[in-house]
């Protein structure tokens, strides 16, 4: 087959759960068990070929029960996408959309239109598992990208090299790999010709290619000479000999935290080139690779953390608070920090951890027991056991268990001798335990 190593160990619900975290947004109630029954190959196949979208669960709404207004209301673009992550029947498609949002990181900060951003998002969704060459073509003429990296400012009369440079440095080749400053400039010339108008009260409209603004002259890019246009730019970058290694290593890094070994990287590159730059076979091979199942965990991104909690709880989108909460944790969708995307190596620090604390608090809010009414056992062991059961028995390490038990023992002891405390503390402890589990290291990484 592909020549890429495949995992041949036991594929149980633990492995299936890891797959669901890496290729999606974590399992719903019994999803990991169901997926495990398929076995590795069929499980991956079901993710890579998911069929039509069939959303699961109730429609999203804002805090007042109104439908979302993702094009217009501030922050509801974030909520709109988060809802898809929570309700999708095609988790890998949504996950790949997130990958491309980070890869071709475009921020509404520079675009100024939630509609154009969501259109770009749909582009990622539609082409996310197809041909990278086609994806690059689409991105290159995408209005949000044209605004973000000055594509419509780039004309024959005076080229703007912003997109031409990042196209090579960040999107296809990597910094300083296989191109020169001259290539950047010539590439910018090839990319000239996109235009758009600006209408008061409407914004940027009428995106088009106008040959009058295109530089029709001869360009030399990567030692090749011709009257290149933007499509040639895309083709030259994708067929550049340094592109497959860049593509494979970068794509891999979204799924596995350690770099692929040389043989794996080589086989994946072959798969990519022989498959004519199709994304799906490479993703499929990565999802079956032993490194995904046997290697270390990855820290979840804030959005993955949030969507994962909601999926596990079976809670639909019923508040817009997730926008500012995820922003506090370091990831507001449609607003990556710069064209390089988010830094996946540094999600956790004392500020962003606090953001996750409040995400967990909000996620658990509807489930909180009323200390005045709820009955809970006053036995520490039982309380901890029940809280772990609430989260469907996640495996927790000794330190986390010790933290939970210490809290519970101390709080149960505090209640001794006072009747109201003996009634009210156990439900409070149960609430606290559920929250602590949700912020435990085991919940922060998958």
């Amino acid at each position: 087959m592909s020549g890429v190593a495949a995992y041949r160990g036991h594929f149980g619900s633990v492995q299936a759960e890891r797959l669901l975290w890496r290729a999606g947004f974590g399992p719903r109630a019994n999803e990991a068990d169901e997926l495990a029954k398929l076995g590795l190959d069929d499980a991956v196949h079901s993710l890579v070929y998911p069929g039509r979208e069939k959303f699961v669960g109730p429609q999203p709404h804002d805090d007042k029960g109104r439908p979302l207004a993702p094009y217009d209301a501030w922050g509801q673009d974030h909520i709109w996408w988060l809802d898809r992550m929570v309700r999708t029947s095609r988790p890998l498609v949504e996950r790949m959309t997130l990958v491309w949002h980070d890869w071709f990181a475009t921020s509404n900060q520079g675009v100024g239109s939630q509609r154009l951003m969501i259109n770009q998002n749909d582009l990622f969704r539609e082409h996310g598992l197809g041909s990278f060459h086609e994806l690059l073509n689409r991105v290159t003429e995408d209005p949000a990208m044209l605004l973000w990296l000055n594509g419509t400012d780039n004309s024959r009369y005076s080229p703007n090299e912003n997109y031409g440079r990042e196209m090579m440095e960040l999107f296809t080749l990597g910094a300083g790999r296989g191109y020169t400053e001259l290539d950047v400039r010539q590439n910018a010339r090839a990319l000239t010709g996109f235009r758009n108008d600006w209408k008061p009260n409407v914004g940027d409209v009428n995106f088009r290619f106008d040959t009058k603004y295109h530089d029709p002259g001869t360009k030399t890019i990567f030692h090749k000479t011709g009257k290149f246009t933007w499509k040639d730019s895309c083709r030259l970058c994708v067929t550049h000999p340094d592109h497959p290694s860049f593509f494979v290593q970068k794509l891999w890094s979204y799924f596995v935290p350690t770099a692929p070994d040389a043989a794996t990287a080589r086989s994946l590159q072959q798969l990519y080139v022989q498959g004519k730059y199709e994304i799906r076979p490479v993703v499929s091979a990565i999802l079956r690779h032993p490194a995904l199942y046997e290697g270390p965990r990855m820290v979840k991104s804030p959005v993955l953390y949030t969507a994962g909690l909601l999926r596990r709880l079976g809670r639909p989108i019923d508040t817009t608070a997730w926008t500012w909460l995820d922003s506090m944790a370091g990831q507001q969708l449609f607003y990556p920090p710069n064209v390089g995307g988010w830094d996946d190596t540094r999600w956790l620090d004392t500020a962003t951890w606090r953001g996750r604390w409040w995400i967990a608090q909000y996620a658990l809010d509807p489930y909180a027991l009323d200390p005045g009414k709820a009955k809970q056992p006053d036995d520490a062991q039982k309380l901890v056991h029940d809280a772990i059961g609430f989260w469907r028995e996640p495996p927790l390490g000794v330190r986390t268990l010790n933290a939970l038990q210490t809290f519970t023992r101390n709080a149960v002891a505090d209640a001794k001798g006072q009747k109201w405390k003996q009634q009210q503390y156990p439900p409070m402890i149960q609430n606290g335990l559920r929250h602590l589990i949700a912020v435990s290291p085991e919940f922060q990484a998958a």
Partner: protein
Amino acid sequence: MSDDCLHCNGLSRSRLLHKAIAEAGRGLPAIEPGMPMPAGTGLSRRRFLAHGLGAALAVYGASRLGLSAFEEGIAAAASGAPQKVLVSVFLEGGADGMSVLSPQGDPLYKKLRPTLALSGGTPLAEDGRLFWHPATSGIAQLYGEHKVTVMPAIGYTHPDQSHFTSRHYWEVGATSTQLNTGWLGRYLDAVGTLDNPLQGVSFDDSLAPTLATAKVPVAAITAPDQYDFGSNRVWGEVEERMLEAFGLFGGQATDPALHTAGNVAVQVDRLRRQLLPFRSADGTSGIQSPVTYPKSSDPFPSKLAGLAAMLAANLPMRVVALSAPGEYDTHSNEPGALAQGLQLTSDSLLAFQRDLEARGIADRVLVHVWSEFGRRAQENGSAGTDHGAAGTGFLIGTRVKGQMIGEFPGLQSGLDDDGNLVETADFRAVYAALLEQWLGVDAGRVIPGASAFQRPGLIA
């Protein structure tokens, strides 16, 4: 394996996208504790140290030492003679030097900048061809007082026009992608102590790569007073018990991600406890500045106000890093964006200087303003400029010589084959001079190949 991927020539995601940050921060624990602005009102310095900064530090590296050791270290260091302090201010994005100091006296300027060319303003006393951008009036004013050294074309040979790469070079103090400690971090590794994280402070949400150390602890502090935690229907004693518990998540874990998550929880716990005294119910600031800082929604001026107060309290700081406000990657519509950022930066730095002077501590503080590159001499068609090479930098303080380092090379013969300004001073030479003449350490211990660079005289 994960270690290798950051150093190999293949491009891991972190290497590629955030090379500067990721590499400079490698080997250090994830970002730690946050910040107390000196809520120093009514607190004695000793108490300020015990309950304030020492307590609330973001501690990087050397984390085997407990916090009490840090507090003692800070107290010990603070009882010594006040140190010289270097404040690094980064204009992120590649500031357009040819607008900051516009070469209006160069005959080619208007040809290269038909729409962007500035006209009029204050000429630079040392070179009548150059004029201060109106938004930098604050710095120009200090220049008139001989408190500013101008570097009109600072850079390095074989300039790299990638934001990520060039910035990394400036951060590590070498044109190398392999170094993973900042140049000021290595200075601290050379002269710092294992128990004083305040020696290097990043006033940001995360550690500035310039300060990344291999051995000694450094800190990051952001905004002060809102480090609160709560839960649903858990209160009183039970809430206290609950909040006490998450510090137990930490400890040596075999899985690196679990290890990080546990360690950050421990740091959060430490920070939360230490910041409790700073969470005032009425939310008032403890900083009283003798001067007025610019009003802005950007925290830059208030960070500088806090820094001045901390320095006045004789806290043992040696190097400090901040990011300047503003957008400097001006590929389009440059005039407005640039002016806005420059104005707030320059006005804030003027206020900071006046603050230090009013507090009588100006002689021990020097500010270094830098950007990863300048911009192309020829404007593009979008009323903007693309990535260039040499740019403009400043040294600000009462002790600077106020004598230009390098000269403006002129647009006739001073552009390279790509149409970018050629450098007349190397940033590593300036680093070496700062280390030796201001911070008092042999630059050979910090800057690779330091002996090759001719040191300019910086200090009066």
